[in-house]
């Protein structure tokens, strides 16, 4: 009983503390607001039906009990009643279906977009590519969870946006119609931003489309909503809706940065540069399975510290990073990372912890390896 009391006290505290978290968000877009209205409309209809049905039931439970000395009635059918409580709910349902259909039709009003972003789900991160008018990518980037393992494992205090923060958010302009083409690289994911009222499955081999017009600048957060494996709970979505001029400036900046990135592919880096960049890539892409100390979580996720592959021939090492290993959680990183990043992380893995192979891996080695495969 003591436990129950604690439960109820907690219930009250929870309701008091989280009063604004009891309901669906009305969101910021026209669509999300009409969804919210629909939700509240049907909620109140359910409440009304509940009051009538449960009211009748509780009246009966209180007044029609044997201890009251009543004699049970013997009636057991009424065709009129049966027809009535078939027809009335049907009419109520038509009343609900009408506005629901209108909202749905409005949501399917695709086309006429101002810009298109390809959203691609990976285990366990999102990739955003900004497409030009011919649907070619001008530039793109991955958006990874920014919450540290220390926060997750309770070794440091959890930040305000625990599990809802990324290293690089998707940026879109306000007041323009943004079209999202949604797909996935490996398994099914789902892309959801509650405040926009949009959610769609990201399915490998298929393209789904979705659109939004965000009227207010701000940071909007969501999560992957289709079970996609181990880190399904750790691939948030963050969207920065920016004022139009700020967005345009940022977009122009990114186009220049893209040129610089392409140049890096033909550069020769020093060992120090490779180690610094490699450690950063490792922390983002490798550490969640192979652990920051390179020890892994055997037997599911093998360690890299002293492993045969990290100490073996460069070609085998590149092969497993670029192509992954089928039947295991080791993904193919060939498409996710560019040659400069792969070179850096490979060099890092061969020289971090107790590993010390003594070679140097440059972007051109990676390019050579990948082109030799084709």
């Amino acid at each position, binding site marked *: 009983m003591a*436990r*129950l009391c604690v439960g109820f006290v*907690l219930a009250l505290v*929870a309701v008091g503390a989280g009063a604004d*978290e*009891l309901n669906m968000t009305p969101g910021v877009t026209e669509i999300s607001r009409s*969804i919210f209205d629909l939700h509240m409309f*049907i909620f109140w209809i359910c409440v009304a039906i509940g009051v009538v*049905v449960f009211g*009748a*039931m509780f009246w*009966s*439970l209180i007044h029609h*009990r*044997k201890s*009251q000395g*009543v004699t*049970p*009635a*013997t*009636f*057991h*059918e*009424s065709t009129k*009643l*049966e027809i009535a409580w*078939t027809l009335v709910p*049907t009419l109520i349902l038509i009343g609900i*279906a009408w506005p*629901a*259909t209108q909202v*749905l*039709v409005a*949501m399917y009003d695709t086309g006429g977009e101002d810009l298109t972003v390809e959203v691609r789900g990976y285990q366990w991160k999102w990739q955003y590519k900004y497409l030009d008018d011919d649907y070619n990518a001008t530039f793109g980037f991955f958006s990874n969870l920014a919450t540290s393992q220390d926060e*997750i494992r*309770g070794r440091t205090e*959890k930040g305000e946006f625990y*599990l809802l923060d990324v290293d690089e958010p998707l940026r879109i302009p306000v007041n323009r119609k943004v079209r999202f083409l949604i797909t996935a690289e*490996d*398994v*099914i994911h*789902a892309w959801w931003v*509650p405040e926009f*009222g949009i*959610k769609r*499955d990201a*399915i*490998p*081999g*298929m393209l*789904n489309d979705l659109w939004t017009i965000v009227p207010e600048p701000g940071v909007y957060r969501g999560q992957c*909503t289709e*079970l996609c*494996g*181990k880190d*399904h*709970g750790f691939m948030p979505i963050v969207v920065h809706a920016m004022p139009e001029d700020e967005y345009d400036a940022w977009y122009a900046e990114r186009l220049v940065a893209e040129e610089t990135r392409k140049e890096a592919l033909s550069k020769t880096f020093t060992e120090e540069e490779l180690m610094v960049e490699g450690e950063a890539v490792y922390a983002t892409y490798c550490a969640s399975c192979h652990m920051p100390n390179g020890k892994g979580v055997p037997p*599911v996720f093998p360690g890299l510290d002293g492993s045969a592959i990290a100490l073996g021939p460069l070609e085998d090492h590149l092969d497993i990073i670029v192509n992954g290993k*089928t*039947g295991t959680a080791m993904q193919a990183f060939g498409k996710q990372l560019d040659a400069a990043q792969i070179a850096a992380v490979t060099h890092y893995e061969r020289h971090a912890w107790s590993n010390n192979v003594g070679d140097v891996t440059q972007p051109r080695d990676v390019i050579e390896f990948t082109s030799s495969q084709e």
Partner: protein
Amino acid sequence: MSEVVEAGHGTHDDHHDHGPDKGLARWLFTTNHKDIGTLYLWFSFTMFLIGGVLALVIRAELFQPGLQFVNPEFFNQMTTNHGLIMVFGAIMPAFVGLANWLVPMMVGAPDMALPRMNNLSFWILPFAFAMLISTLFMEAGGPNFGWTFYAPLSTTYAPETVTYFIFGVHLMGASSIMGSINIIATILNMRAPGMTLMKMPLFVWTWLITAYLLLAVMPVLAGAVTMMLFDIHFGTSFFNAAGGGDPVMFQHIFWFFGHPEVYIMILPAFGVVSQIIPTFSRKPLFGYDSMVYATASIAFLSFIVWAHHMFTVGMPLAGQLFFMYATMLIAVPTGVKVFNWVSTMWQGAMTFETPMLFAIAFVILFTIGGFSGLMLAITPADYQYHDTYFVVAHFHYVLVPGALFSIIAAVYYWLPKWCGRMYDESLGKLHFWLSFIGVNVTFFPQHFSGLAGMPRRIPDYALQFADFNMLSSIGAFVFGFSQLLFLYLVIKAIRSGKPATDRVWEGAHGLEWTLPSPAPYHSFTQPPKITDAEAHS
């Protein structure tokens, strides 16, 4: 009372021509519907406890934000196996166990129509589940792709043990198909003279319809897992887009099985509640005919609503609208049932023994689950609910205080008939209140965390969901541990309960109550006379 009952009384202790074997052989080789019913019920209770332990692992991990007890990889195995074990191991076998015990007694038959197949359909199950559960102890780990096992997570990206899972599902399906053939054959062929279809107790009706649903959809499930098997081992590409297949097709096939499956788990519950409420209201069931038609309508509709589980896969507008309208329609026959139950109570003379308490809780809480179901049917709103805890709350409301409460109610209601002894009424009421409070504290807050945006199947969550999750975990532990009280109650009743009368309950009607308590090993060796008092007229 019929003459058969008098005869039964005369030879109460040892009238069996060939009674049960002694020892283990009785249970291994039995072809008796009561023994097999007992096996099913104990098996499902065992699975219920195992599935419950997995649920408590989940709730312990979700007690607070952060990862405390298990890794995400193991967490996914917990959610997957919790779902599989509860659906296929606890709820479904429990209903088959009830059907085994009750259908022959209710239609005036000596036993099930196909007794040897009956034995086989039970004994497949322990092997199927041993195979499934053993994967949790293997190096690659157990199934971790959710009980809905969407491809390609369950094919290309599955752990190697997925083949055990596929074989296990095949065995479960074979067991269900045999069980349902047996139930159909018994109901259609073994009814006593005068027990016309429209005089059958509603439990028999709901099971007849459920058995047809099982026959229709278990082969579809078998097809789905066979295609998975071929994709994994034989290089086909049914569900692999890179090879010309379609991952969405998996979902269509799965839910063509999966939605009728949901009704397979609830229609027999409707039947149980329709037996219990009239007894304790001391008034005949209101609208018997419309109850039968509503059950049949729900069964029909269950085949044309499957894609409401898939509103976010990107179907064309026309498809979305069709599945939205069809799904909303289910509210009509379901509503008819609820209205009939309330009308049955209306102007009755009610008492509130434990089975009645569970049945009333069923009506209230199942209806709440129905309301959230109606909300989920609204496609635009579903975009916000889909795959959040709102869905988790919805289906737990229809499965726990829905299906499970009806099973518990059935055990309390018929246990005195089965073992000839009464359970402890005050402990039964304590069990009810602990379960009722536990279930609501567990699942009601999940509506809120879902609306606030918490996705399902995640091992860790953002800080704004913390309060509701803590509450939910507390409720889950209260609910989980109070089921041990149920175990104690049942054992105590079997070993030392007060002897039960033949009628057991003052207001009970139906052929099973004309038999002595405990019911004889072979229920009706001669067909009983069907009187108005014991059948619907």
